[in-house]
């Protein structure tokens, strides 16, 4: 079996006296698009933050690219970090920078592309997320919620990551934009063998994009399998999430499309 890109081993999280996760195990093989679903407040964002090392789990270990997240020298860690990117739930754009500078920033820091190339790469990323060139000069405060999401995605894609973590990427996007987001991620995934972990409540996105679904409930990963297999699992949360009338309609729509 290929080594997983990302693996969580016996991961537990406690805030104060509140256990959010208890013994989460998850291995994400390369090239998969994994949707992480769970009720609101079930700790999806927290799990994502632990995957990128923003939060240290109370117990357990996170391995990225088959190494502990914090192993090796400073330079080794920097190289490792450059291989994955995260899109935050609220965008987390640099508010003092324009859209252009936000996307150009990681490229400049990497110091590989020339300034002229950076210009073109930024323009390219903007077209990829369907923003107009004229949006480049705007400040984050001047963007709509959906535009913030797309700029955040463009910034996350700037360094061509191999592993992309997305926290509710389609929340706040209109259906057409969600569809083109799905197309973009699928394209990237096919061309670059990108591995994607996305938190989503949007069943259309989930059904269209994910090769696997991980269900986070009762403080652990209840199921991790293909959508069809996960839907067979007999658990109240899963039944409610996938098999309610609304969900059934969305899933049918996605299968028909």
């Amino acid at each position, binding site marked *: 079996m290929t080594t997983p890109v990302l693996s969580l081993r016996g991961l537990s999280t406690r805030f104060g006296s509140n256990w959010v996760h208890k013994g989460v195990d998850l291995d994400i093989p390369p090239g998969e698009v994994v949707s992480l679903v769970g009720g609101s407040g079930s700790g999806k964002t927290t799990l994502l933050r632990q995957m990128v090392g923003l939060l240290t789990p109370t117990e357990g270990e996170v391995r990225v690219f088959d190494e502990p997240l914090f192993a090796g020298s400073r330079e080794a860690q920097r190289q490792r970090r450059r291989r994955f990117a995260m899109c935050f739930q609220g965008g987390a754009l640099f508010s003092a920078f324009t859209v252009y500078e936000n996307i150009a920033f990681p490229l400049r820091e990497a110091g590989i592309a020339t300034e002229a*190339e950076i210009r073109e790469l930024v*323009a390219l990323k903007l077209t990829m997320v369907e923003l107009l060139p004229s949006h480049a000069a705007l400040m984050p405060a001047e963007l709509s919620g959906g535009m913030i999401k797309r700029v955040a995605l463009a910034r996350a894609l700037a360094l061509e990551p191999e592993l992309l973590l997305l926290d509710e990427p389609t929340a706040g996007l209109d259906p057409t934009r969600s569809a083109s987001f799905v197309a973009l991620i699928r394209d990237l995934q096919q061309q670059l063998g990108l591995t994607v972990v996305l938190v989503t409540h949007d069943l259309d996105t989930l059904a269209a994009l994910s090769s696997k679904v991980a269900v986070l409930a009762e403080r652990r990963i209840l199921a991790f399998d293909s959508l069809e297999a996960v839907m067979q699992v007999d658990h109240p949360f899963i039944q409610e999430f996938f098999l309610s009338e609304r969900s059934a309609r969305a899933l049918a729509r996605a299968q028909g499309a």
Partner: protein
Amino acid sequence: MADAIRTPELHLSEGCLSPAGDWTLLALASHANRLRQELAGAKATRWDLSALNRLDSFGALLLWRAWGGRLPADMVLPDGYATQFERLAAMDEAPVPRPPRVGVVDVVAGLGGALLGLFAHLGDFLALIGRLALDGLHLLGRPRNWPLKEFSANLYKVGVKAMPVSALVGFLIGVVLSYLSALQLKAFGADIFIVNILGLGIIRELGPVLVSVLVAGRSGSAMTAQLGVMRVTEEVDALTVMGISNYIRLVLPKVMALSVAMPLLVLWTSAVALVGGMMSAELQLGLSYGYFIETLPKVVPAANLFIALGKGAVFGVLIALVACHFGLRVKPNTESLSANTTASVVTSITLVILVDAVFAIATRSIGVPL
């Protein structure tokens, strides 16, 4: 990916150029310059991309530029890569506009803008005072709506919590001032005048100004930052939508709290500074505590105390108003937050010193024994 990175290469065979390996940002990190040169020097008419292991948009961009912005007529292009170049072609149609260059006209316009900005500040500041006065009048008949909780919370934050630091600073200033003056007075044999100098200097002048500087740095900046972050996170807008006046809930309690806390802090700090001065005088000049305490009220008329308290209240109101003025001007970005916080502290300290000079002139004939 789990597999190792393959070095990006550019092979030339029989007039056909074929890039090989990983043409990705990560893999190109240490080869970009070499490959840029090789691409620039290449004179092939045929291209073959089938030997590529991976191609990301940076690698694609390098090739696209080498091709002069269009696909070569004679090439082998695996299916998966076609969309990359389609995107690049689409991007060429819609380049990011360059920021306009800064010219002489812009400099002049900037200067004019700064001047107009100053007027805007004055206008906004007046508007703030006006709104506050109107809201205050509105509150007169409605004691239920008085922001008493906020007032008391602010009073605790800006007053009680500032006591240790203002005492420390006051005490040290008192000691230093007394020590330096004592050295001079000893030379003239005018030891006993230390009480006059310390009493008048600290109570009338140093106490209020010292406390103002401390409070402007400590509480003024905090008020600006708090209001600023509330603007950034749209909390101020949420209040407005609920029909709750920002001025009554946010500005008024701060102004009230500082106008009450400042005179008290002035009193406290001046007292501690005098104690410091007294201790230093005893050590340096052998002036007894009893003598110091007995002489103080005789050489410093009580009017000075009232001037100090009045100054404290006025400075407090000024600092709070300036802090709120700048806080409410914060635009939703971090740069604006930091600029406004700086401006708030600098402006309030400058303003306090200016107003102090006005006070000095206006009260020049009051409370100074001749």
